[in-house]
């Protein structure tokens, strides 16, 4: 059985197929092609929601995204809040309910897929109504690369809502032919259900395609549900149509009150009668089409209430023939009813004054206050708007390069005009791009339309209800009224932007599609200034709401942020490593044995490296190949110490500063040849240091004959660390004399392993005897295995970054970016020895001579030993000192600095820390205090090197 308000025939719905859905717990039926709104209306249901602050009943007030009333929550197939019943396409199994203003986010992850696609075109046409189709055809026929996007489920725009004819046939036949022609053009992308929601710089337009929403549970899982199209268009034609504008009157939010054009859409597109007895209230001719069509479909049109003194003389005869009462010079002043309008209050209206009224019974009150061109995308592209006195609307006020507005969006409101304007817009775009329009770009003939009677611009009907505008709703979603605007103005606000923020008008889900221009008009009226001077609030993307899931696209889970891994990653995983994020790198932090926590594992790993042998995957270290006759000159200018004096075969530690003299990176440098160095940087500094080198070479010293190339991933770096490291390395690489005499500390040697080149370097970041093994990552697994095998008799122990940190901190080796913060000089780190006094200049040198850098109270890197030999001071803790009397100074307590690194030491058998402390080196031997969990932990200030300060082990 057909629902009571479904017409017997017609509409764009598939009547042969029934779909079942549940709304507010009630099982109902509709058809494919319905929206949730049209299906509800077919069952006679207008009221779907209650308002957010006042709790007033709200119904379906429009037929698409401009609806301010019909907010619903979808529960099945997946919870989604704040959707409009008018834009939810009906499918089998839909479960939804009306909303009291706010929805509910799903509490389970959304398993649907979302993605994004980049697309480049010559011409992007937004809107597949008459103007947009004409524009797309014109551009396609010229051979241009075209995209046509339209937010509806099918092309046609306003033609879907009426009975217009083109070339003496139903206009939709032309639409079908146009769509077919576009489908046959290989360079045309035509997307329906796709909303261009943002227009940005350089022809960049974002559009959301709802690919499978309308399929419900039948949506294929491997296809994205929604897709963000990132369209780069050389030219954009905006043919987005116009939104009908209501007139504000008392109790204008009562369900059953609807825009006149929407009723026509429900009738023709969805085969739904939105009521049995209608009153039509208008200020212009367009609503007459609705009145006449509804009347023909069997709706009793009680009256057409036309605010214009003469009404529409042209349409009077048609109304009389249809038996429709015409009330010119009249307005609707209010409504009656409980959850649905039962009466419209109608009164004479002349010269702005409202006379004595009477009630007309109706279950449908249709309103038209004129049309607002949908200028959103134009305005987002920073196009200025101008107010049109005749239309009572804002129109594009200037031409923009690369963006043309056409059709109703440009204020052209007749069919023939829209077709011609669409073609004009496309031709203008093509010409600007140097593309010749096709000789034959014929458009269909639209019947001659008579000149309509001029509309009356009427924002609101004076409130005669006694409510003083407090039930005259401007923004239904925000429950904001004429009284609220008056209050804003009474509070002294003049700017429309301020009125918006005071009243919250236009800040809801619909972003003021129906309320924005009304607010400008009413504000101007109350201020007694021209509407042009009030202007509009700023149009910002998105045009309609876009789910965060769609914006995130595929950048979720594993693809959220790239994980960089070394060539040994699989080995680390298999070995049960616990990983640490170091930038985008995944590095083993420690390798726990069964039952071990991190502290236990790290103590074991540290002990192995200090007493036996450990091995680390240090491949993430940044590596830069610096090559050319002037390579040494470049490094001398960028490092604080001398690199040109480094001998081939040797290694030197170096510090790099910014022009301000602050340390930006450190590392070791291998001289490979007279004209070639391998520069090692910190893991985090790899890209930064290469960029730094390139910046100086390219912008300041282009005369230097030097080239810098990243080789970070060209070499794995495997430090073999500890007193037994010599045995292990010597066993794996018998071709190298690994003795201290033949291969001293801070030198490197090349060798090979079964023909594969290998480089060994005596570099130590642990203070122990150590050899770093460099090899092409293709052979990383093989070499790592060889080292482990050779180390097995010595108990070789793989260790992670945590142990690496403990070992280096025990030696006082700072980590740039952890123990420094951009305000630390080499001198502050106790590295005056690494600052050349011989070089006439290097980056940062001049800044060292600034008086601030000679201040003895600068923060300096020192060691801290908690006196209780127990507390691991939290990194980041503040350091304070007691007064001579053993008391804390009165608040605010001066801060001396902070703890930068802190660990438990196996070697020292106690916790220790590094800290930046004001005048720190002068304080060595003193006791400072560190607040930890509300108690002050005393700590002795020491030098920063706590293990083997003489370096005997390292050099051994």
């Amino acid at each position, binding site marked *: 059985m057909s629902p009571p308000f479904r017409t017997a025939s017609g509409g764009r719905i598939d009547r042969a197929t029934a779909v079942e859905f549940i709304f507010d717990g009630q099982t109902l039926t509709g058809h494919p092609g319905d929206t949730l709104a049209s299906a509800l209306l077919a069952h006679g249901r207008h009221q779907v929601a209650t308002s957010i602050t006042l709790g007033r009943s709200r119904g379906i007030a429009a037929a698409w995204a401009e609806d301010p009333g019909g907010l619903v929550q979808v529960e099945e197939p997946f919870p989604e809040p704040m959707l409009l019943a008018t834009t939810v396409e009906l499918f089998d199994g839909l479960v939804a309910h009306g909303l009291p203003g706010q929805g509910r986010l799903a509490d389970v992850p959304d398993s649907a897929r979302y993605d994004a696609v980049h697309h480049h075109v010559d011409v992007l046409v937004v809107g597949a109504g008459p103007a947009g189709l004409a524009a797309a055809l014109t551009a396609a026929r010229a051979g241009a690369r075209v995209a046509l996007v339209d937010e509806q489920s099918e092309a046609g725009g306003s033609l879907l809502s009426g009975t217009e004819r083109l070339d003496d046939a139903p206009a939709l036949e032309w639409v079908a032919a146009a769509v077919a022609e576009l489908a046959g053009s290989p360079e045309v992308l035509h997307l329906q259900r796709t909303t261009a929601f943002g227009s*940005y*710089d*350089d022809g*960049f337009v974002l559009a959301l395609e709802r690919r499978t929403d309308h399929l419900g549970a039948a949506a294929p899982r491997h296809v994205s549900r929604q897709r963000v199209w*990132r369209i*780069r268009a050389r030219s954009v034609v905006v043919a987005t149509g116009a939104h009908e504008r209501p007139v504000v009157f008392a109790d204008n939010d009562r369900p059953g009150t609807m825009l006149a054009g929407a009723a026509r859409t429900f009738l023709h597109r969805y085969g739904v009668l939105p009521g049995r007895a209608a009153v039509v209230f208008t200020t212009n001719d367009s609503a007459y089409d609705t009145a006449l069509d509804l009347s023909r479909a069997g709706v009793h049109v009680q009256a057409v209430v036309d605010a214009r003194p003469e009404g529409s003389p042209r349409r009077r005869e048609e109304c009389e023939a249809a038996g429709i009462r015409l009330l010119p010079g009249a307005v609707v002043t209010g409504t009656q009813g409980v959850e649905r309008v039962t009466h419209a209050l109608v009164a004479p209206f002349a010269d702005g004054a409202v006379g004595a009224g009477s009630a007309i019974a109706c279950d449908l009150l249709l309103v038209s206050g004129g049309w607002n061109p949908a200028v959103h995308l134009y305005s987002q592209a*920073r196009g*200025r708007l101008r107010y049109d006195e005749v239309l009572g609307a804002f129109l*594009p*006020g*200037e*031409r*923009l*390069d*690369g963006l043309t507005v056409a059709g109703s969006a440009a204020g052209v409101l007749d069919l023939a005009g829209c077709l011609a304007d669409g073609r004009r817009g496309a031709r203008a775009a093509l010409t600007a791009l140097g593309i010749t329009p096709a000789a034959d770009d014929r458009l269909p003939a639209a019947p001659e339309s008579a000149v309509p009677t001029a509309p009356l611009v009427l924002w609101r009907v004076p409130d005669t209800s006694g409510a003083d505008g407090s039930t005259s709703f401007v923004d239904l979603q925000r429950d904001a009224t004429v009284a609220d605007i008056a209050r804003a103005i009474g509070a002294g606000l003049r700017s429309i932007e301020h009125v918006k923020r005071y009243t919250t008008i236009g800040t809801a889900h619909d972003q003021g599609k129906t309320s924005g221009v009304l607010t400008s008009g009413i504000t101007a009226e109350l201020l007694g200034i021209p509407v042009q001077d009030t202007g509009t609030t700023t149009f910002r993307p998105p045009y309609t709401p876009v789910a965060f899931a769609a914006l995130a696209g595929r950048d979720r889970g594993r693809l959220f942020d790239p994980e960089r891994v070394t060539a040994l990653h699989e080995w680390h995983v298999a070995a049960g490593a616990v990983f640490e994020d170091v930038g985008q790198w995944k590095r083993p932090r420690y390798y726990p044995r069964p039952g071990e926590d991190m502290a236990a594992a790290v103590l074991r790993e540290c002990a192995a490296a200090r007493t036996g042998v450990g091995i680390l995957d240090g491949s993430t270290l940044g590596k830069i190949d610096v090559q050319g006759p002037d390579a040494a000159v470049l490094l001398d200018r960028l490092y604080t110490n001398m690199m040109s004096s480094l001998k081939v075969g040797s290694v030197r530690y170096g510090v790099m500063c910014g*022009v*301000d003299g602050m340390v930006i990176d450190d590392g070791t440098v291998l001289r490979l040849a007279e004209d070639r160095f391998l520069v090692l940087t910190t893991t985090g500094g790899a890209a930064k240091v290469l*960029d730094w080198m*390139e*910046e100086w070479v*390219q*912008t*300041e010293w*282009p005369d230097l004959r030097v080239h810098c190339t990243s080789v970070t991933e060209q070499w794995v770096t495997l430090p073999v660390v500890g007193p037994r490291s010599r045995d292990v390395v010597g066993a794996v690489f018998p071709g190298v004399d690994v003795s201290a005499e033949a291969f001293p500390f801070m030198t490197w040697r090349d060798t090979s392993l079964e023909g594969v080149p290998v480089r060994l370097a005596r570099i130590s970041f642990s203070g122990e005897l150590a050899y770093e093994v460099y090899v092409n990552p293709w052979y990383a697994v093989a070499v790592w295995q060889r080292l482990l095998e050779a180390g097995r008799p010595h108990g070789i122990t793989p260790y992670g970054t945590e142990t690496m940190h403990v070992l280096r901190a025990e030696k006082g080796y700072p980590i740039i970016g952890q123990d420094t913060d951009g305000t630390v000089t080499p001198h502050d780190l106790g590295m005056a020895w690494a600052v050349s006094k011989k070089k*006439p*200049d290097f980056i940062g*040198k*001049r*800044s060292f*001579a*600034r*008086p601030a850098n000679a201040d003895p109270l600068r923060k300096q890197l020192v060691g801290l030993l908690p006196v209780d030999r127990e507390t691991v001071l939290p990194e980041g803790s503040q350091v304070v000192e007691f007064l001579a009397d053993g008391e804390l100074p009165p608040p605010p307590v001066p801060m001396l600095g902070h703890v930068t690194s802190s660990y438990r030491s196996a070697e020292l058998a106690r916790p220790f820390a590094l800290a930046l402390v004001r005048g720190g080196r002068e304080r060595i031997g003193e006791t400072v205090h560190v607040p930890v969990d509300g108690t002050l932990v005393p700590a002795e200030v020491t030098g920063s090197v706590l293990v083997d300060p003489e370096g005997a082990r390292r050099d051994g």
Partner: protein
Amino acid sequence: MQLIACPWCGPREEVEFHYGGQAHVPYPDSPAELSDEEWALYVFFRDNTKGRFAERWNHTTGCRRWFNAIRDTTTYRFESVYRLDDPKPPVTELARSRRSTAP
């Protein structure tokens, strides 16, 4: 998402580039001879231009080349890009607006 025209690779999305601050601020010939104030001017002070501004960009995810650009800081529009060995173009004529004549 703006496009920036790399002088070599052509127009690319802005995310492929890094900003390098004001252009044509050369490293001083003899830093040691500068007063603290002169040195501080080089290290810390840059113009804060409203309007057309000569600045440096690096096509980091592309060809890694540094280049210069004249950009209008009020509209963000790039007026021109030029290579480091090109002379600085005159920054006098009026900014070319996206707007042309009113209809």
